């Protein structure tokens, strides 16, 4: 059988089309294309979540404890029992540690010894996100500095980058140190970095963060870009400071300080 060039090219072209058609027909039906991912209906949404800590309302040790316990309990944060291995999402520290450079020898004694509630600041310009080599930590659309622990390789760049010490490394397997695990939330594994997530899993269900709920109004949470939000009202009515704002990370956690000698309702 002989074939001229013209016929050969026709046949070759037809075969190519035929192979393509065969592949399309033999492909198993792709169900995932028919499916989609949506945001939950109950979702609380924002452009930038923010928190105001009204430190005037933290008076007793119990006030701090209930806020910290509420968070650490539902998120399965382990209690490793020593400061070297400590894992924390929300904690308290003194004024000179929380606001270094702002303290002075002559400041009110009360303020010097006051404990401040500290947590991840969910910065608008987060240095931890910039340094993460795997994009395990990233900025969500609602302003939460989130972590995808499936991607964390435990390099701890983010811990070095965070000026607030908000990140903890799991030097040991945390599982045995979670006393009453919350079966609805995962734990972490050895070798990953963790921190506060502004309770994104609760926001998705229309709930306020656990610490806010437990704080009895001492923590105020809301969308800072929404002029009608409660945080904006509180920020408009009170003088607030942020931790190390001079570094330009634009923290989203604000502090209302006690003003001894003031009339108390600034």
């Amino acid at each position, binding site marked *: 059988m002989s074939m001229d060039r013209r016929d050969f090219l026709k046949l070759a072209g037809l075969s190519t089309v035929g192979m393509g058609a065969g592949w399309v027909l033999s492909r198993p039906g792709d*169900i*995932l294309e*028919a*499916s*989609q*991912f*949506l*945001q*939950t*209906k109950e*979702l609380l949404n924002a452009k930038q979540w923010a928190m105001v800590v009204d430190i005037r309302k933290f008076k007793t040790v119990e006030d701090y404890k209930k806020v910290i316990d509420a968070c650490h309990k539902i998120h*399965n944060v382990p209690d490793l029992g020593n400061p070297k291995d400590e894992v924390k999402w929300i904690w308290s520290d003194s004024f000179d540690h929380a606001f270094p450079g702002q303290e002075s020898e002559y400041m009110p004694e009360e303020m010097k010894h006051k404990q401040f509630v500290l947590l991840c600041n969910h910065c608008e310009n987060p240095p931890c996100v910039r340094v993460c080599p795997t994009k395990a930590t*990233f900025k*969500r*659309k*609602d302003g939460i500095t*989130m972590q*995808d*622990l*499936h991607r964390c390789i435990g390099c701890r760049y983010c811990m070095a980058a965070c000026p607030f010490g908000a990140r903890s490394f799991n030097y040991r397997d945390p599982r045995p140190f979670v006393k009453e*695990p919350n*079966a*609805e*939330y*995962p*734990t*972490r*594994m050895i070798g990953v970095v963790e921190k506060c997530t502004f309770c*994104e899993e609760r926001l*998705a269900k229309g709930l306020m963060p656990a610490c806010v709920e437990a704080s009895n109004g001492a923590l105020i949470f809301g969308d800072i870009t929404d002029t009608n939000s409660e945080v904006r009202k509180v920020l408009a009515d009170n003088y607030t400071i942020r931790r190390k704002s001079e570094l330009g990370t634009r923290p989203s956690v604000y502090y209302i300080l006690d003003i001894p000698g003031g009339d108390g309702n600034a």
Partner: protein
Amino acid sequence: MYNGGKILIGIIVFLLFAAFPFYNNIGKVSAKPEPKLNTPVIQQLAEKKCVEPKDFMKAEHMQMLNDWRDSAIREGKRTYINSEGKPFYISLQNTCMNCHSNKKEFCDKCHTYAAVKPYCWTCHIEPKEKRS
């Protein structure tokens, strides 16, 4: 061929050694894994259906779990609309394992058979299994 005998013996010994797993298992049939679906939650379902059809889940659940993970964590989208238009809350611990609360009889059955070790459970908490 120099040292032909020794080489031949060497080759035979090597083949016997290398093929050991094959002839050692000839005639032994390992039982086909049969994951159990008889959890209380599944038995109470009016329509015993997973998120997607059984055959799809069998073949694609690993890819689907990855998609769920990325959607929930990275995009914050926690509702999955399946091919029939039914919504599901995206969560391994609270949705998948709510029905499949028998990890040992369900997940582990095939995973052990196929010698795969998914690392889900280093972080995610597996359901407490009731021994009855």
